[in-house]
């Protein structure tokens, strides 16, 4: 009889115990891999809104409600961002680039349209906008008289196309082209896009804006930040601290906070992990008499521990592989992660509080779930390593130099 024969017989004879160990380890690996995959996909989905505007952080400031909702107003209740605050944010460590914008609503009794004035630089500005052109010409801030781009859906709804005119605050603009603003996770969707300087000019002359703020032709009410990812957390908290309670700072972190329940199971992983370790240790403790018998017939402590380790390594190895197989099947079955997220008012492009607006504030953020290869390998390796370590430690505890107490008759 070889030790492998003993191992095989032991695993087969203790079928229930072997199955429980196998299932437990596979469950841990399955959960670790699947939750990581879903978490990664969720993070990707959560990053989508900000990726679409080419920014890591979007900064706004909460303001007051205009006395009258008529003509051009700031989206309620966005306020003017003070120029000195913009400058201080620009100089924060970790901030790579800032892009200013003016976001406006144009309200009249029978019409609503949103307007975004964008900077001529940066991925959040005109270059990013022009990359989504579907017809006509890109927006050129140097062209006079000033032209506008319109959203594809807005254009088809209002039967507009390149070459047509659009009117804003009594001023007419030629439509240079239409853009296909991404429908999912787009936080900066507007109906009409203008060069930043033109939007600043319109805002500085809008009666219900200047009634609330000393808005000038160089001010903005929206700031996009491109940030070194290592400083995302510190920049976010610095901006919040700098702007105070009225700061509206949208970042991957702030959006993720809204979905923290998703990570509930991840937090429980350590509990599940501990339970499996306890289970493995208890399975070995149950064998105290058998281990003493092995000692009595001349097996040394290293021989017994190596036998236990080999058994546990095989069980956890196979269990881990089963866990990976189930993860792969589960991930293939789920396919995509879909996060239905209600946009908060500050990142909503439409005045949802108006009764005539049927804007659906719920956005579906979709990202494919992929098998995380590194995590899979790591989860399998750690499962085997932990199981074997548990077996070794439990073995050392159980295999004492003098095992008579386990063998003596009651």
């Amino acid at each position, binding site marked *: *009889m*070889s*030790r492998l*024969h*003993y191992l095989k*017989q*032991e695993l*087969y*004879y*203790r079928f229930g115990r072997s199955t429980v160990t196998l299932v437990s380890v596979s469950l841990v690996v399955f959960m670790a891999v699947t939750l990581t995959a879903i978490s990664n996909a969720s993070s990707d989905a959560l990053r989508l809104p900000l990726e679409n505007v080419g920014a890591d952080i979007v900064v706004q400031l909460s303001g007051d409600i205009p006395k009258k909702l008529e003509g051009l107003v700031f989206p309620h209740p966005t306020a003017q961002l003070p120029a000195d605050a913009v400058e201080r944010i620009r100089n924060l460590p970790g901030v790579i680039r800032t892009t200013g914008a003016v976001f406006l609503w144009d309200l009249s009794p029978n019409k609503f349209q949103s307007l975004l004035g964008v900077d001529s630089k940066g991925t959040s500005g005109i270059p990013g906008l022009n990359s989504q052109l579907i017809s006509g010409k890109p927006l050129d801030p140097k062209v006079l008289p000033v032209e506008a781009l319109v959203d594809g859906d807005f254009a088809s709804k209002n039967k507009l196309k390149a070459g047509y005119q659009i009117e804003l605050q009594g001023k007419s603009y030629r439509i240079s082209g239409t853009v296909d603003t991404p429908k999912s996770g787009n936080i900066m969707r507007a109906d009409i896009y203008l060069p930043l300087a033109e939007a600043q000019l319109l805002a500085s002359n809008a009666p219900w804006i200047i009634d609330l703020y000393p808005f000038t032709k160089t001010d903005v009410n929206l700031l996009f930040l491109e940030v070194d990812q290592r400083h995302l957390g510190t920049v976010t908290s610095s901006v919040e601290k700098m702007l105070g309670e009225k700061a509206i700072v949208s970042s991957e972190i702030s959006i993720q906070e809204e979905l923290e329940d998703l990570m509930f199971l991840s937090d429980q992983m350590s509990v599940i992990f501990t339970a499996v370790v306890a289970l493995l240790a208890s399975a070995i403790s149950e064998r105290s*008499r*058998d281990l003493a*018998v*092995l*000692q*009595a*017939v*001349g*097996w*040394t*402590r*290293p*021989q017994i521990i190596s036998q236990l380790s080999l058994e546990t390594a095989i069980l956890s190895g196979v269990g881990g592989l089963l866990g990976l197989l189930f993860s792969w099947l589960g991930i293939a079955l789920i396919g995509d992660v879909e996060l239905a997220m209600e946009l908060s008012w500050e990142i909503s492009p439409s005045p949802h509080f108006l009764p005539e607006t049927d804007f659906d504030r719920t956005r579906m953020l979709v990202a494919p779930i992929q098998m995380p290869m590194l995590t899979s390998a790591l989860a399998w390796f750690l499962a085997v390593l932990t199981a074997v370590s548990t077996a070794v430690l439990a073995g050392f505890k159980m295999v004492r*130099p*003098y*095992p*008579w*107490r386990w*063998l*003596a*008759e009651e």
Partner: protein
Amino acid sequence: MSNAVQVTNLSKQFNTVSVLRDLSFTIPAGKMSAIVGRSGSGKSTLLSLLSGLDSPSSGSVSIDGVELAGLSESELAKIRRDRIGIVFQGFHLIPSLDALANVLLPVAFEEKTKQAGHIDLAKRLLEEVELGHRLNHRPAQLSGGEQQRVAIARSLIHRPRVLLADEPTGNLDESTGKTVLSLLRKISQEYGTTLVVVTHDTEIAQQAEQRLHLSNGEISDETN
């Protein structure tokens, strides 16, 4: 005649209770010795010390000329594997293994080249204890007497110099007990093994060449 076992000033205490007090005796090689005494007299404790499965509070035990005190864990295991065979009252077979594999358990780590010889010997031993037809039966499929016979075969697989049996018939009915004991005697004689039986049964003790009586932690030689 050489001694298989030599015990010198052996004592064992559990907390404040003194179970064995300053025992000194020898057991001659190749004979059957019985250690008798009432329940609780310390017989099994003495056997645990003779087998190196427990440590004495003081004194020494020498098996086949090897002093157990001061041996490392691995050296003790080697002594048990090479020179001592143990038969327990409760059989102590591994439930997952069949009779043949249980008998082969002490030699599981030996070289592959020796395995074939061990298998032949194990089969022969099982035949000698009249279990040649039960090689592939697990302990749960065997009666108490059959299990004890497997345990005897296991204790002899490595041809030990000393065979220690702790109440080998204690869990068996009278008739099966007699069969087991006669097998134990027969095989140990055949293999030239010193047999030490711990028992409370005076009838078994009568069959031994040497009888040691244990009472109140002290031992006396009652061999006629």
